[in-house]
């Protein structure tokens, strides 16, 4: 397997452009709100107290593990005290928006913390290219590569806000490849590693297990062997993560307590009825006095919905062997279905979560061209959703603090003005509208073509465009 495939000159230049854009944006942009826990975890790792030292980082640990070698190199040339700085003038903005933290990390730090995700971005593009190329050849494979590398939402999430969702997504795409090649041990390992980036790949593990249970086998022994290999792979992942499980109870402790979270919404089911759900849940008290709070209910809805869809998606392969192109497509569709179920039902669905499903939609493009509308809609809505929360000014603070190009006061004024502003499109109105649209588009990825809202709207726009331009 060549790491770098032969690409046409134009595609190669465009891929290089995608990488260069990421590298140029990375140092001078950041989501301060999301980044502060990463920053604290970084200095905790570098001072020897582990990823969870100050109890800020509340994800499974692998993102910080992948960032550690880059951070270790950085601290050789940059003292920890210069990794970031308090910016008291941002306090008002932080209080008003709730989406800004008055601490801005330095350009060198920003580049380093984003390095693993930018590398993963490129690897994801190459994986997508290879998988499409093996099945449908050019030009589909080059198109798929560019759909990923030049996707504005992907660039925004990895290079601008610095979120790491591409890493678990890469694990899930590699798991698909491994599963289709019947490398079940490898598939189990990749799913397990994915879970140690973010929890959601666990549901894809349920999907693959279900596929093995319903597929055609000559003997139950062969089926048992494959299921055992998948499980062994997952256990191998646990072994790799054993330092975090055996030598510190902080990870499980902090993750376990996240059920106390109070936030709902985003591009999911709860964009429509948060107050109703909250009211209903408040009344649910079991006889034993155990109280079911809304986030717990949402978690159960997500768990149940995703697990059910995992099994339903697997049923499409009932009685078939997993060998031909058609089954590969069904596997890919299964991933889309399971991830859509998670996105729709989890308590909070944010723009970065679109990166969980985008690779699979791109992989399906050659077989199902209608997916282009969902890809476009999710990319645009995801980017708009973030912008509707705090405006683009919120990511430019490194530019304001560390260069003379932009003034921090001006950035503050833009955000304050946006939040104070009224008129037709208020901050709340914009966010709600985009949330509902995002919810409908994600729902459409689950539905047949004639009910898929993004396809319906996309084709209507295409027809109008055609009429207008002869």
């Amino acid at each position, binding site marked *: 397997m060549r790491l770098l495939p032969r690409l046409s000159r134009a595609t190669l230049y465009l891929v290089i452009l995608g990488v260069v854009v990421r590298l140029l944006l990375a140092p001078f942009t950041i989501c301060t709100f999301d980044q502060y826990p990463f920053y604290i975890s970084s200095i905790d790792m*570098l001072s020897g107290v582990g990823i969870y030292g100050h109890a800020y980082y509340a994800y499974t*640990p692998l993102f910080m593990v992948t960032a550690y070698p880059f951070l270790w190199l950085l601290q050789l040339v940059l*003292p920890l005290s210069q990794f970031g700085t308090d910016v008291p003038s941002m306090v008002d903005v932080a209080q008003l928006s709730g989406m800004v933290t008055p*601490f801005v990390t330095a350009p060198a730090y920003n580049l380093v913390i984003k390095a693993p995700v930018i590398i993963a971005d490129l690897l994801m593009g190459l994986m997508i290219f290879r998988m499409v190329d093996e099945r449908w050849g050019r030009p589909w494979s080059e198109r798929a590569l560019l759909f990923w590398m030049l996707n504005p939402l992907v660039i925004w999430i990895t290079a601008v806000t610095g979120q790491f969702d591409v890493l678990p997504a890469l694990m899930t795409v590699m798991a698909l490849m491994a599963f289709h090649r019947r490398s079940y041990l490898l598939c189990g390992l990749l799913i397990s590693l994915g879970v140690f980036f973010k929890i959601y790949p666990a549901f894809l593990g349920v999907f693959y297990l279900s596929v093995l249970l319903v597929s055609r086998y000559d003997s139950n022994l062969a089926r048992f062997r494959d299921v055992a290999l998948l499980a062994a792979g997952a256990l191998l992942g646990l*072994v790799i993560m054993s*330092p975090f499980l055996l030598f*510190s109870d902080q990870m499980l402790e902090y993750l376990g307590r996240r059920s106390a979270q109070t936030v709902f919404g985003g591009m999911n089911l709860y964009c429509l009825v948060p107050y109703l759900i909250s009211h209903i849940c408040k009344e649910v008290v079991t006889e034993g006095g155990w109280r079911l709070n809304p986030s717990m209910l949402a978690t159960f809805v997500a768990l149940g919905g995703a697990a059910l869809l995992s099994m339903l998606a697997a049923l499409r392969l009932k009685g078939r062997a997993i060998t031909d192109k058609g089954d590969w497509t069904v596997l890919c569709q299964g991933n889309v279905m399971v991830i859509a179920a998670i996105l729709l039902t989890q308590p909070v669905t944010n723009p970065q979560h679109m990166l969980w499903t985008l690779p699979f939609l791109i992989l399906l493009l050659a077989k199902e061209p209608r997916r282009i509308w969902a890809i476009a809609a999710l990319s645009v809505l995801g980017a708009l959703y973030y912008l509707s929360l705090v405006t683009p000014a919120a990511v430019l603070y490194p530019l304001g603090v560390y260069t003379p190009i932009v003034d921090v006061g001006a950035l503050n004024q833009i955000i304050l003005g946006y939040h104070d502003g009224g008129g037709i499109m208020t901050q709340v109105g914009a966010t709600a509208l985009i949330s509902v649209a995002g919810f409908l588009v994600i729902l459409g990825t689950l539905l047949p073509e004639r009910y898929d809202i993004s396809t319906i709207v996309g084709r209507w726009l295409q027809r109008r465009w055609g009429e207008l331009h002869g």
Partner: protein
Amino acid sequence: MGKLGMAVASMACVLLLLGVALIPSPGYDIELQADVHGNTASVTVRISGNDHANTLSLVGASLNEVRNDTMIIVSDDDNRTMLGEATSMFDHMQAEAQLRGVALDLKMAQIDELPALFYGENAIIVMFGHDGEMGEAAQQWVERGGVLVGFGPHSIPFVGENMIMDLDFSPYEFSEDDIESSSVADALALDTVAPRVGMGTDSVLENGGEPIGYSCLGMESLALFPMGEGRLLMFSAHPSTPILTSGADSMASDLFRLVMSGMIWKNGEIQHITIQYVPGGGVWQFEMSRVADMRITAISLEKWETLFAAVDLN
């Protein structure tokens, strides 16, 4: 095993090695020693094994009491906001104690346990909820020697309009140019500089309190009220966004520093020395004025390589 398998296996090995490298094992240490010569305390600070520069604060004060009370964070499971704040406070407080190598007996309790707590032994009770009918019991428990920690209006059952302690709470206008730090906030580098609500300086003083946090345009962020044998420590507001200046993280850090340095029991003025130390550490010697029942605390102020040590001179 194909090339994909080889690549994943290599990646897995690297992750395992990195995981082992990241097992918490701080190699830095601090020793604090104090010898008394007449009215002078000669203080020696020895820092070793640190890879990074940091700032150390050396604080000396006379204390009314030196106690190692259990800290109990009281939450209300029916109130999701309170539960989230209490949980976050618990996590950050526990992390502070672990990082600083302090044996803090930390527990969580429910509001229906308050009656038992208010008739029980001395403790530090951190209030994230109450049922509003425990005012007298709470006050009497504090006056017998308990420590109660509140967060803004309605957090303490005997604090409010026409109650035993009538504090004036109003929105706290954070202004970078107008903020002033108390000697305690300065010495311990307290984090909570921008609560959403403040306590009027006059009302704090009228109720016998001492502002020990930050002051901005006539509003206080934190105050200590001696009550009989006990103390009421009032943060002026509930934890809120953003973290770092107003959240449960900053309040947990502040509470830890105030409790472990003994500042909640301070009696009179404090003495304060700042040390800037470099990688590799070093040895420093200082002299402080000896006061009765003195505690000297050394605490590193930045978030990395967290050091803590204390000595009591009785």
